């Protein structure tokens, strides 16, 4: 995480400035923390290994087809994960598209513009949003959000953007778009609070320098603050994405749980996490259970791949700015 690295660099420079007395305690502390860090890595490998072990039969039986076929039929014991992978990735992307601008906007308002007396109430409210259990959010989704989407927002979207393939077909309310929207609500708090911390860590000098050059408030925010903090904000987005991929309960209740790949966002979809939550408890045959384990393994893989891609994107983005700076 970029935030973490930035903090580490700070600590390093602070340590080198001080003369480090060699003490046993320091060494022990170092080993202890190293052990903890290794334990996390070990845990990740253990999870992966266990999931792979639990799905050996399914991997052998379906092979690579598991990732490329779309049939999910517990009666005939034919299992393919493609619609679930698609649903997970698409619903998470929708969530990011909605949540990132909202979160960064909130964070900018809170750090740059809001009068002091209003900051704390908003911060507490956003943090309270994170404390709502996801099953409650899901019920709210079924009984409040879905009817509203079906009667007001979706018809409007259809009227405005019906010419694109994304907003066509009958409107039921439960849909891929509804799933993405509920995830957006769930990842808003984390992206907002991380973004706020990052914006707060932008040095005052940056802003003062921009003001000194005669920049307006908007220009200061855009050039001196947002552009400076871009890397960290991207990291906040990645943290949100990580949560979005694994969200289960609330999504399950509003996404429609239909394993299909449809371009229209009004159509119901299904996610990897949802199918596990839905079917694990009542799966009785071995191959069925193993297929569900393999879904878990795929989710694990998707999370890793998406995170790697995001890191890669971040890297190319920062090298580009570096070269631009040199030119």
């Amino acid at each position: 995480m970029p935030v973490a690295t930035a903090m580490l660099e700070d600590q390093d420079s602070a340590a080198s400035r001080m003369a480090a007395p060699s003490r046993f305690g320091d060494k022990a502390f170092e080993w202890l923390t190293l052990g903890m860090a290794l334990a996390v890595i070990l845990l990740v490998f253990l999870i992966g290994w266990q999931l792979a072990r639990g799905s050996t039969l399914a991997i052998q039986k379906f092979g690579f087809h598991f990732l490329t076929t779309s049939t999910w039929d517990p009666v005939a014991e034919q299992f393919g994960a493609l619609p679930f992978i698609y649903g997970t990735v698409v619903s998470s992307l929708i969530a990011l598209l909605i949540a990132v601008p909202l979160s960064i906007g909130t964070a900018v308002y809170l750090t740059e513009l809001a009068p002091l007396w209003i900051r704390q109430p908003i911060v507490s409210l956003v943090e309270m949003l994170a404390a709502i259990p996801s099953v409650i959010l899901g019920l709210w989704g079924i009984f409040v959000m879905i009817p509203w989407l079906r009667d007001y927002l979706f018809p409007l979207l259809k009227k405005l953007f019906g010419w694109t393939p994304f907003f066509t077909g009958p409107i039921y309310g439960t849909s891929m778009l509804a799933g993405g929207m509920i995830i957006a609500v769930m990842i808003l708090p984390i992206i907002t609070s991380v973004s706020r911390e990052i914006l707060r860590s932008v040095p005052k000098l940056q802003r003062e320098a921009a003001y000194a050059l005669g920049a307006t408030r908007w220009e200061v925010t855009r050039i001196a603050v947002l552009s400076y903090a871009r890397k960290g904000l991207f990291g906040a987005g990645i943290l949100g994405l990580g949560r979005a991929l694994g969200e289960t309960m609330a999504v399950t209740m509003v996404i429609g749980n239909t394993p299909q790949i449809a371009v229209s966002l009004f159509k119901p979809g299904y996610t990897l996490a949802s199918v596990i939550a839905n079917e694990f408890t009542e799966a009785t045959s071995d191959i069925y259970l193993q297929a569900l384990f393999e879904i878990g393994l795929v989710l694990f893989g998707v999370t890793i791949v998406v995170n790697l891609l995001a890191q890669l994107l971040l890297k190319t983005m920062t090298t580009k700015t570096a070269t631009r700076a040199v030119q």
Partner: protein
Amino acid sequence: MTKSFRFGAKLLGLTIALGLSASASAQLMINGAGATFPYPIYSKWFDAYTKVDPSVRFNYQSIGSGGGQKQIMAQTVDFGASDGPMSDDNLSKAPGKLLHIPTVAGAVVMTYNLAGNPALKLDGPVIAGIYLGQIKKWNDPKLTALNPGVNLPDQEIVVAHRSDGSGTTFIFTDYLSKVSADWKSKVGNNTSVNWPTGIGGKGNEGVSGQVKQTPGAIGYVELIYAIQNKMPYADLKNADGGFVKATLESVTAAMATAQIPDDFRFSITNAPGKDAYPIAGATWLLVYAEQKDATKGKKLVEFLKWAVSKGEGMAKDLDYAPLPDSLQQRVLKRIDEIKL
């Protein structure tokens, strides 16, 4: 300082004394796991049974039928519970002979959302047609023929089904497989299936939420859930050709007329008899025919006997259908055959 130390010591002494007395009158703990559908009645039974035999305590984890079957096969629990009978494959994998003890039954009802809330009549082939995606509109001739006098709208039928694996889906698809050859070959019967059409909702609340909020929707939910939430549900045509309302009595009637084999792995969907409601199913406890631990086994047998005789009397209060007398007698006889 000393005062608080003394107090602490007293507290410690008290805790030890309590611990000792608890272990002195050690209770026998019988562990079970499985189905969620009968959980309310089972926990009532376990509670009521402490008055019958204070020396036994029950610990039941409602982790789902799949988990119940797995755990009893692995012998990590003393009894399992399942909403569907175990497959031959799973039975052969168990380390000993497993008995199915039916306890109570429930029904699955068709609930719907139509303007004006008309009373609706449905039959098996029409339900299968709707869930196969072949009957698409409420004013389809097949629907209007069943409901003369009801003004059915020219409206799309929105199909809702359970997305989570469940005994309810097992019973529903078991019924459809019996009344429609098309359903049997295309979809089949399981706790979760490859649905040809419709939207999946999680749990009874997910399906009913979908139905309540979508005009023109139809869905299936447990009878208990429909009664407790005052939802409308259709009368169904049974195997004898009459239309029957889903009630606890019509479910018990179905169990009385259904063919029940000696291993009790029965299905009561589409049962004969003029009072039998067609989409119903029982739930079972799973126990080994030979109990390894004689003391525990004896207590378990005593409890089972109490449950299928006295316990059945509590079923109706919790909206479960009790076993008919004839079946109770057969089950009691089977429990007597458990070897200790």
